[in-house]
């Protein structure tokens, strides 16, 4: 398996695809840190805690934060690393040659997946370190231990999230013969979850619990809870909630009603300790891991059972 892993990793790292993706992510990180540094003074007060990790979540006027960029690019990177994993081997006539080597069949898919994971890790850790390092240099506030742990948790969740998209793309690459089809299918799923599900969730919630300006708080809360529950079907939402809670200690709840109340009351709560933040998003983290495992599991089984046909 390590032979496959080594080869795939060196393939990825030397491929034009990787260089393009890395440039894209790197530029967005630069852009985001620039915005954050421009605006961070306006969002912190002398009493603000956890200034360092604010670098990752601070956005400018109408300009997105680093977190937003990352949540946009991780799925793209994951899909780009996985969409042609198996069908490209098949189309190029390499698969049967590879299979006739003295390796177990699962070594191929495991090695490829691990290599993708390694690339994702390199990319995410690299970008977070670049942003953190620049932030440290420019803002000059060092992170404390808790912030570092929060960042590490954030990197871990991002990695799993990227792994989910990669597993999904690998799944399509096992099922579809053509690489273009598997890429489009993966992108379609991503676009659906990223853009449309939120709109659909809103629409469905409004249809079931109609609200207007005269509605009671209870109705508004019901509406918001329903909408959140529906949009949590999307891994994008799960990732968004997790990372916001991890990087913004003030977020006290991912519950829509509680958020609604805190927004109404005009203030966020006191910063939560690390354990509480983790507890808060534990279900989301587990869900992302489970989704990733399910996707990988299906493609693994399908790949193992597939017969190599002669025609």
């Amino acid at each position, binding site marked *: 398996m390590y*032979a*496959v892993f*080594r*080869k795939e990793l060196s*393939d990825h790292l030397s491929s034009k695809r990787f260089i393009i993706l890395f440039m894209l992510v790197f530029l967005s990180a630069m852009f985001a840190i620039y915005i954050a540094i421009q605006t961070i003074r306006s969002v912190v007060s002398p009493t603000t805690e956890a200034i360092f990790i604010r670098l990752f979540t601070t956005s400018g006027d109408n300009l997105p934060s680093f977190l937003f960029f990352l949540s946009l690019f991780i799925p793209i990177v994951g899909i780009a690393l996985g969409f042609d994993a198996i069908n490209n081997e098949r189309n*190029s*006539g*390499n698969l*049967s*040659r*590879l*299979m*006739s*080597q*003295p*390796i*177990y*069949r699962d070594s191929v898919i495991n090695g490829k997946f691990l290599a993708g994971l390694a690339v994702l890790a390199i990319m995410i850790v690299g970008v977070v370190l670049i942003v953190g390092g620049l932030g440290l240099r420019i803002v000059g506030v060092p992170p404390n231990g808790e912030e570092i742990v929060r960042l590490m948790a954030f990197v871990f969740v991002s990695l799993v999230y990227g792994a989910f998209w990669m597993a999904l793309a690998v799944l399509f690459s096992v099922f579809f013969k053509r690489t273009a089809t598997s890429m489009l299918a993966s992108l379609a799923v991503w676009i659906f979850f990223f853009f449309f599900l939120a709109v659909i969730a809103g629409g469905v919630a409004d249809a079931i619990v109609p609200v207007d300006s005269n509605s009671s708080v209870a109705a508004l809360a019901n509406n918001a809870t329903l909408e959140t529950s529906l949009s949590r079907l999307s891994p994008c939402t799960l990732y968004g909630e997790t990372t916001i809670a991890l990087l913004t200690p003030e977020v006290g709840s991912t519950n829509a009603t509680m958020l609604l109340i805190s927004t109404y009351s005009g203030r966020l709560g006191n910063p939560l300790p690390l354990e509480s933040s983790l507890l808060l998003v534990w279900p989301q983290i587990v869900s992302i891991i489970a989704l990733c495992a399910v996707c990988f599991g299906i493609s693994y089984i399908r790949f193992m059972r597939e*017969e*190599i*046909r*002669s*025609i």
Partner: protein
Amino acid sequence: MAQAVVETKDLTKVYGENFTAVNKLNLRIEEGEVFGFLGANGAGKTTTLLMLLGLTEPTSGEVSVWGLDPTRHPVDVKRIVGYLPERVGFYEDMSAAQNLAYTADLNGIRASVAAPKIKGLLETVGLGHVIDQPVSTYSRGMKQRLGLADIWLKEPKLAFLDEPTTGIDPNGIDDVLALISSMAKKGITIIFCSHVLPQVQRICSRVGILSKGVLVADGPIGSLGRDSERYRMEAEVDNATTAVVDAVKAIAGVEDVELMDRTLIVTASSDLRGQVSRAIIDSGALLLGMRIEEFNLERIYKRFSKEAQ
């Protein structure tokens, strides 16, 4: 008797509900043989190879490769078997040397051992001058030769070559066949799948003919012909009349006479060219030319394919 390296017993593969790709195949291949596995496209040759490699599970029957069951011990079998698939592919953006280095890595050959070996092998297969060019610049024939180097690298005891000459020009075919012969001389047992008969005739010591999943013939090329010996003579005749046909038919030993335009086709149990020519001339026609069809694999193949249908 030499050791059997491949042995199958009633090997059967059924795809889906009722498509039988291989039907009760009994095959025995001995060490050092170059076995020609013949059959039209879709006759079940590749399926048989895939079962021998353990890549496809047989529906029923037994397979043994070097005493191992490929379904149970696929990795052990693949360690001693080199498989060159039909239309073999390589990583196009990697060079020949890099592609082979990957194969060496997959076979657990250390890079320091593999590097000089790869260089030597690529020289042997005539790719020494393009060793560091990406495979995407290679012709079909070069890729096939690279494929041979690829299986040679792991020093297999057995090589399965699936249509290794498809899609390459005549010179390329000569090169590939010469390489296969030299592999055989190094003591590698070879199963050579093809539907191109003259090539099989050139390098194989024994052939098996597969038609619709059934092994219809099996034996040395010579013995396959002997039991079916029919001499077929063609005579070009001017002014051929039915009298000529009758005169030829009257010769003892002639089994069938057919007149097509100016060509008289005579089937007989022995070489009767002398008698036939005299009969033609005696009956008043002009004999322009005559030839006897030499025994060849093509005929055996056609005959067995027809019989199977």
